[in-house]
Structures are given as structure tokens and as C-alpha cells.
């Protein structure tokens, strides 16, 4: 418990330091927000097209689809703000040896490396936009806001965040062996975009692959399915189990990678 408190305190400081550092560069901060707003607009247009055609996918109405797109958009914001900025730096740390000093600190190196930075500019439009879509979809579906729905929705958002961390950290860990990972990065970024739409849009094979092999569909499909009362107990259990499994896997591979770390010449 004491350790958790300590880590939370340090994480709070990381966030504070990042906020202060980002405020040093106002123009960059504002530009980041504008660029992300542009992306959000593109996504919103996409949602509007789906919405206006009144298409239904796998028995999901356009309002329900909006719920999925909203969750995905919000999750994208969280991923960008919390993890992406850190994950992108890992190959750089390995290549130039800046990981050296992080290893010598009396704190988990994985925590230090993957949580040190926090981006404020990028996630703001996505989180606001995503939340708006969720609220609109939810209201139009006339589904009651029950505590169970709220807990389920937030709970699976949290497992989704942890699963995002675990799955998308894996390609970056490869850099301990390969140094550069841009090829794998492109693939993992493409995988992320698979959640743009409900998983029902894809063929059965793709759905099974994305649920059981690389469970990306568990990231942003479970929360809206809870609201729609379409998430089975089996799927819930698997979503939680997969999150734990992949988190353990990321910890294990990071540990292996640290053993393999050969640093860079000074």
C-alpha cells in the first residue's frame, strides 16, 4: 500500500512536470490541440456519414455504432496522452543509452520508462469529442443510466486502458533486441485503427483473432457492449483475464529486455 502511494505521488509529479514543461512552449501546445481537433473532425465526419446513412452493422443501430466510435475516440485520446508519447521514446532510450540513468533509480524501470511523460495537448479534443459521442449515443438509445451500466462501462474502460498499455508496449520492447522498431510500429498503429468500428463489422476469423490472439477488440468494444446489455459473462471474464495475462506478459518481456540491454557507447 505504501509503495502504491509512493508510485502515485511520483506519477503525480511526472504529470505536474510535464504540464509545466509543455506550458513553456505555448505555440506547440496550441498547435497540438488544433491538429488533434482536425483528426477528431475527420473522425466525426466519418461517424456522421455512418449515422446519416442509417446503416446497421451486426444488428447495431447507428446510435449504437456512435457509442462504439465514441469509446474508441476517447480511448485514442487516453492512449495518446498516457502511453504513446512514452512508448515512442523507448527505442530512442535504447539507441542513445539514456536508459542507463533510469535503471539506476530505486524505482521500477518499466514505470519510469513508460509513465514518465504525459501529453496534455493531444488527448483533450479526443476525450471531449469521444465523451460527447458516447453521451449522444447513450441518450438516443433510451437506455437508462443504472449504476451497473456506469460501473461496467468505467470498469471495462479501465481494463481497456491496461490492455492498451500491455499490447502496445510489446512492439517497443522489441527495440531492446532490434534497436529500431518503426516497421513493427506501423503495424501496431494499423491494428489500433481496427477499433474504429464495432468488431461486428469484421469477418468471424478477424473477430476471433482480435479477441483471442491479439485482443485489440477487447479494448474499446466491451464498454459499449455493457451499455447495450450484449456482453456475455464469458466475454467479460475473458476480457478481464486477457488484460491480466497481457499485463504479466509485458512485465515478463520487459524484464527479459532489461537483461538484454547492452547500453550505448558513451
Amino acid at each position, binding site marked *: 500500500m505504501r509503495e502504491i502511494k*509512493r508510485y502515485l*505521488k*511520483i506519477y503525480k*509529479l*511526472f504529470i505536474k*512536470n510535464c504540464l*509545466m*514543461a509543455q506550458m*513553456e*512552449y505555448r505555440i506547440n501546445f496550441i498547435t497540438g490541440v488544433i491538429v488533434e481537433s482536425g483528426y477528431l473532425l475527420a473522425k466525426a465526419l466519418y461517424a456522421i456519414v455512418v449515422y446519416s446513412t442509417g446503416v446497421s452493422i451486426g444488428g447495431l443501430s447507428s446510435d449504437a455504432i456512435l457509442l462504439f466510435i465514441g469509446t474508441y475516440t476517447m480511448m485514442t485520446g487516453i492512449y495518446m496522452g498516457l502511453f504513446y508519447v512514452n512508448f515512442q521514446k523507448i527505442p530512442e532510450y535504447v539507441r542513445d*543509452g*539514456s536508459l*542507463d*540513468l533510469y*535503471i*539506476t*533509480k*530505486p*524505482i521500477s524501470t518499466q514505470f519510469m520508462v513508460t509513465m514518465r511523460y504525459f501529453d496534455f495537448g493531444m488527448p483533450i479534443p479526443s476525450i471531449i469529442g469521444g465523451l460527447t459521442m458516447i453521451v449522444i449515443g447513450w441518450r438516443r438509445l433510451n437506455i437508462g443510466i443504472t449504476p451497473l451500466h456506469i460501473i461496467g462501462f468505467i470498469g471495462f474502460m479501465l481494463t481497456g486502458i491496461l490492455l492498451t498499455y500491455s499490447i502496445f508496449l510489446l512492439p517497443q520492447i522489441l527495440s531492446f533486441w532490434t534497436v529500431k522498431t518503426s516497421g513493427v510500429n506501423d503495424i501496431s498503429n494499423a491494428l489500433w485503427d481496427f477499433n474504429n468500428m464495432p468488431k461486428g463489422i469484421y469477418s468471424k476469423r478477424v473477430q476471433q483473432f482480435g479477441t483471442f490472439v491479439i485482443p485489440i477488440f477487447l479494448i474499446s468494444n466491451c464498454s459499449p457492449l455493457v451499455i447495450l446489455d450484449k456482453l456475455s459473462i464469458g466475454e467479460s471474464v475473458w476480457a478481464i483475464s486477457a488484460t491480466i495475462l497481457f499485463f504479466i506478459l509485458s512485465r515478463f518481456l520487459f524484464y527479459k529486455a532489461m*537483461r538484454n*540491454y*547492452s*547500453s550505448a*557507447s*558513451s
Partner: protein
Amino acid sequence: MCTRVNRRDDSTNTVVRINLSRCIKEEEIGLALIHVEGLSKQFEYYKKELGLRNSIKNLYHRERLIKDAVCNINFDIEEGEFVGFLGPNGAGKTTTLKMLSGILYPTAGKAEVMGYVPWERKKEFKKQFSIVMGQKNQLWWDLPAHDSFYLNKCIYELEDKAYQETLDELVDLLDVKDLLGVQVRRLSLGERMKMELIAALIHRPKVILLDEPTIGLDIISQKKIREFLKIYNKEKKATILLTSHYMNDIEDLCRRVVIINQGKLAYDGDLSHVNDLFSQSKIVKLNFEEVVAEKALTKFGTMKSYEGLSVTLEMDKQNLKEKLKQILEVLPIVDFTIEDIPVEEGIAYLYQKKEGMPDEEAK
């Protein structure tokens, strides 16, 4: 904790290993705070010949080669010692420091720092040591150094009072009070290094590994950092291992040096005795009343410089006394001095050797 300790015998320049279990009084001899035994590190790499064709060839076939960065080195450092760790570029100094700080796993051998195996990366170990690398920084670039110090306070779990006291003391010693609120990116290289030192020492480490802390600094900044390290070592009894390419750093701070070349131990002993290993000469400076012909002097030794009235000769140690007697009798001497060969020359000699000496010879 290791049971063996070392005592350095300055007269013979040897390391005597003593077993504590044989009832040797501990207070007579210091405990080895850093113990290195047969430490080796190999790196795997591959060669790429010049040109595009070879780059394409490299895509499907790479010849794997092994480099022995550090090869079976042994040394012990006692508590409170300030040891210079020298060697030419690529000798394995930084690799050794990285193994001692737990950054790298060795390929073979043992090491203990304060009784911990560094590469086990135990939290308690990390809390008691620090490494400063002149070319790497831990400070947040866009924030004043003060914010980074506070972050370290939380990471090292320091009490408010202890943190404030240490900070005040270090800030005072390094004279950077006015710079605490300035963003790191706006500081000069020297100022930044001072801040890096504070960040590295804020938790009062018992063991400090310094890898070229004065690299790129001007003479005044180098001097200030040297003075600081000297005081810190004396007052806090910290054990310090320092690598530097600046001889002034080493001569000013370290009585003992460990020299490695091509990954092997080349010398371990007093800095002043480096030349004893191989040099049988002394430098004799002579001042004359009147100009003496060069020819008349070369029979006494090798001419190092000739400026008419003042001459420098390198003379054999063995018959120095007799030859000096002759010089005094025959030549119009006004004044003369006898000096050791500069320590830099001895170190340069060890650097240039193709192979590091075997450990026994080194000791």
C-alpha cells in the same frame, strides 16, 4: 558481505589479500566496499564493409563477432577511497562502471558494491550509490533543476529535513543558489554539470561512480568541480571511482589509480609509482654559467632539451649519483634539479601498450 579485504602495501606496491575469518582486526584494515573479481564483458557485433553492396549483403548475412570490452579484471576499493580509473578510449572503463552500477550484466566474473551484486538491481543498493555520466543527463530540460531535485527526493524517499539540509549544503558548496530557478536548457554546460552533481548526490550516496564529469568544461569549471569533489570525499567519506581524460582531475584528486587497456588491467597502485613499473630514468635539469656544447652532455644521458645555458637530460637511475658527480666536477654548473618522469608519460606508455599486462605484473 565479502570476507576478503585488501591492504595496499605502498612500499612494494602490492595488494595483500587477507581473510577476515583468520581473526585479523578489522580496524587495522578497511573493508573493501567495491570488490571486483574476474569481471568480464563481451559484446556481440557485426562488421559492415564500405558501400551499398555490402549493406545489401548484410541484410541476409551478418558475420557475428565478439568484442572483449572488459576481460577478467580484479580490484578492490576501500571505504572512503578516491580512485582514478584510467584508460584510453574504448579501454572498457565505462563498461566496467556500468557493470558496477547494475546497468549491464557481466558475461563472467563477480562484483560486489557495499555487499550487493549490482546487476541484481536491488532497491536498497540503488538508494546508496550514484553514477554521474558527463555525457548523459537526468535533469528535466525545460524545467528549473529544482523540480528535478524534488522528483529525486520522492524517488529516493528522502525526509523533508534531510533533503533540505543536503540541498542547501550542495547548493552552497557549488555556488548555484541563484540558478535554482532557471530552466536547465538556459544553463551553461558547467552550470548544468553542477546541477547534475546535485541531482546525483541529493540522497547522500556512499559510493559514487563518476564517468568523465568534467568533459567539455572550461578550466575554471573543471577546477570548481574538482574542489567540490575533494571536499565531498573528505567530509562525507564517500567512496569515489572517477574516470577522466584530464590529468589534472586525476592528479588533484586520486592517490591511487587503476589503469585498464584493451579491457585488461594494466596497473593498480599509487599514481606516483606509475613510472616505477617500467621507467629506469630520471629527469635532470641543469643550469650553466656559460654555454656548454651539446656533444659534451650527451655522454651523461639522453638530451630532452637544449637551450645553451639550460639543459634537460634523461639519465639512467642506476649510476645517477656517479654521473652527477662527474657533471659537477667537469661542467660549470650553477644549479640543478632531479625530477621523476612526468606521470602522464607513464600513463601514456601504459595506454600505448598493445596488450594489457597480466594482473600479477600489474600489481
